């Protein structure tokens, strides 16, 4: 059985947000919509201070709260563990956004699709070919670039990461790079106390 997951190597991450922009490129995301982003926080006091960069993404939880609360069946898990959203079925109730402890659900507003990235309704050809995937008023999120994954490619954010801070692979395969990193460098899941069984792991 395949169970896809991701490892974020915090030691490697330089907070450049190439992942964020690659995701916007791949998924035609409107202004202000993110499927992934990298946060930063200062740690310590001058002069013993550093800044940590923390990539975030949908954790594709095994016990996904968003899936449990979805009343329409729009949110579902594939056999390989990728948590999907079918925009055609989403009724825009927002339960998923409330349930997700990681704030990874985003509503697609009509104005975002009509204003366009440059504003004033000036949609570029890029947006015109891309926004057709979205249903106004529905809630969306990262799907690990499932179409790329099905074609044997890494998700866009992983492929572009300049420092290899994002690694994608099969958690069920003990020899996969993600499994080895989690094992060798003690991968930690975000908010484990929520018992969502995230498939995203952080290593330092």
């Amino acid at each position: 059985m395949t169970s896809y997951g991701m490892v974020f190597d915090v030691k490697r991450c330089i907070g450049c947000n190439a992942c964020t922009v690659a995701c916007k490129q791949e998924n035609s995301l409107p202004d202000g919509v993110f499927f992934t982003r990298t946060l930063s926080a200062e740690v310590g006091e001058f002069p013993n201070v550093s800044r940590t960069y923390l990539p975030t993404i949908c954790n594709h939880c095994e016990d996904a709260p968003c899936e449990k609360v979805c009343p329409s069946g729009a949110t579902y898990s594939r056999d390989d563990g990728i948590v999907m959203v079918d925009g055609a079925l989403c009724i825009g109730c927002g339960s998923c956004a409330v349930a997700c402890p990681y704030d990874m659900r985003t509503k697609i507003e009509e104005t975002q699709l009509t204003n366009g990235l440059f504003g004033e309704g000036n949609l570029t050809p890029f947006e015109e070919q891309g926004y057709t995937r979205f249903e106004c008023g529905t809630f969306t999120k990262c799907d690990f670039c499932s179409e790329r994954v099905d074609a044997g490619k890494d998700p866009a954010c992983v492929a572009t990461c300049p420092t290899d801070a994002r690694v994608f692979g099969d958690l069920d395969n003990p020899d996969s790079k993600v499994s080895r990193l989690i094992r060798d460098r003690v991968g930690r899941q975000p908010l484990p106390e929520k018992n969502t069984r995230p498939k995203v792991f952080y290593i330092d």
Partner: protein
Amino acid sequence: MTDQTPVQNSMKSGTWKKSSCKMCIHSCNTVVHVTDDGVINKIEGDPDSPANMGRLCPKGNAAIMRHYDPTRFKTPLKRTNPEKGPGIDPMWEPISWEEAMETTIRELKTSIDEDPRKLLPSIADFQKLYLWAWPLVVGNSNYFSTAGSFCGGGYHPMNGFIHSTFAAANDVNYCNYWINNGSGDGFSSHLHTAAQAFHVANARVERNMRVVCVEPRLSIGGAKAEEWVPIKPASDRHFALGLCHVLIEEGLCDYETLKHDTNAPYLVGEDGYFIRDSDGKAYVWDGKDNKAKTYDDKSIGEFAIEGTYEVEGKACKPSFQRFKDILAECTPEQMSEITTVPAETIRRIAREFSTAAEIGNNITIDGRDLPLRPAGYNYYRGAHAHKYSSQSNHAFKLVNMLVGSIDVPGGHVGATLDDQKVDNGHVAEGDSGQLLGTPHQLGPHPGFSYPPDNMDLMSYFPLGVHPGHLNVEVWNNPEKFSLDFKPDVMLICHSNPIWSLPGKREDWFKIMREMRFIVAIDIVPNDTNAFADIILPGHDSLESWNMTMIEPPHTEGMCLRQPMTDPLYDTRSEEDIFNDISEGLGLLEVWNTILNIVNGFEESPNLKLELDQKHSDKEMARRKGLNWNGKDLDWYIEHGHAVTPRRTDKWYKPWQGLRLNFYIEDIVRERDGLRKAMDTAEVPIRDEWHWDDYQPLPTPVLEPVLRDNDEYDLYAITFKDIQLNFGESLSNPWIKDIVYRDPVHTALQLNTKTAAAKGLEHGDLVLVESKYGKIYGRLGLTEGIHPETIGVSNSLSRMMSQNAGVPYGGGHFNDMLPADLENTDACSAQCESVCRVKLTKLDHIPDELKGEGSLYSYSDGRAAQ
């Protein structure tokens, strides 16, 4: 999903083509996806490139938004509003190419016929460097941009002296101890960032390479480093000299290398020149025979590098001893007072650096036995861009040279700009067995002239890079500088000097307004082309051809750019435009002759451009590719690039058998040559010239900015990160969407305790004033900045301009910098990049920042709220 049609852009039906990025001056290799409907919908790094290996930085990922930017210039334009200034609508009127070119050629010709020096060119496409040479067509050597002042006035000439290269980088292949001083290399900027960041991350994680970042602000590199060493701005040279002091005092140097591979033993007389025999050969002192011998005497038993001697009746010392004498005043304690870095930290880092260098260790690579020195001191603009830039650059190089880590595995290695042919070497033998210093990496010096032929006074900087910032001082004081011409026409090509030059914006606006005619070749509106009379719209990087190699660290080879679609608009290539202008001036043959020289076609008769023909961007790309490796364009279209790792014979010790310039006698020689020329010509300002800036070895002289008065109690620095670079970056919606959510880029960075001492709080609106200019901003308090420093992100230095997509901030950092001779290195032409400032808290937003296009008007949670 109910619909089986792919929704992810890279999975849609279409074609992939190989190309190269142009979202910064470098050229990461890309693959570009075009849908069956002809829409460019995904750009990725080329996984087959040994440089970036499939990676791209955020800017590269955002190139599509430049391509489809609705504000792009779509046709040639003519200005109809005679009033010019920031934010003033030029009221463009579309015109035909015929009319645009006819007007351009006529207006250029009017001035050039009168005096070719009346043209002020600002040509700055770094991926088509041959365009920079166009003014030579009319015998013009003016320069109205910032290559010297904001890139590497001191950096490039010093790389030329030390490595005979344009740039330099620490060797990612073997380095284990990486000092980054005022540089984003490997983390956030400079030299193919995405590529270098990949290799540096691997070295850190897989090899446990230690990174020490020495800088006033905790940059990305500082955040990832094992150690951040906060340093007072403009005191980096003193930190380096402190390291040198310890390395020598504690005997931690690579003495074998110093004696045999550098000119450290060469005897220097009191006049600063080597003592030579009648054949001109430099003397050294044989410590075994206790007598002077020429450097190449086979009987030398021991190269003395210390002591005082008398040779040919002249008192002299080995150049190493001269440096040691200078360092007597550079103890860690003395340097600590200037840098604020604790003396013990300076000592410890010097010891760690020497230990990490594994002095005496060797490695065999490709059959060559080479020194292995896995320690490198890397630096860039933050560290060197000061009044005494040449000395600063030299000091950083000497830290490396003392432990033998110049151009060896693991050390600090020179990176060529563009070798043109795969087998071209870049080193030559100079005088007395030394590596020939090649300070003019961007082309030959225009030569001394009086009255000066260049409004930036380049003729007085025989070792410098064009000091574009001096245009304003000379323009304002033509009599003082004996200027016997007045420029009145400007040619701009992919350049935004009004955004990037230091000094008061108003002074630069004045020059622009006084131009009789300005033509700009560009893609999107910016601060500078807002002053143009004619816009000639160029193809963007997804519509054009190019072939380039641009100072890659650790790889080499030509990178192809090819059109992904037909041009979206009625645009042309730069080649077509310059060919037509040249032809219109009756100078096409001259232009082709120059192109043959600067592209290295002269040596390849089959590639020489036909002088009477016009060569397209595609043809130029084809010939440059052929010149590199004999492969025709179809090969490049398939492969995208000819990039390989730097071949070890060119990367490591390409100068084997020659000696490195520990002591740079050429600096003394050029100083005296200039002085003689100025005396002969009776140049009135010769007595004001800063002759002491010419030093063959670095000294601890204090930067003027460190000597300024205490009324201005903080040092202001500016910085950029990997997300943004040019003035236009922030017209890109994807770049905006990440930059304006980053606290580092939305507020003035001030140390928490400094703020507390001043009674200032996070979010306070402040006026920042230097004695030259001012900016406004909101304070963002941080622990990650030196307490005497205020950090101003590049993202905040945005003015009101015709590009409404770029929100304007609270003024321009560069307004606070001096653009004058007083703060210019007379040796390298570098200007100071740091200023002293004072803060005043304001209780309301100034009216000028209340407009709709202001950064302060954002209301969606982003930016400086």
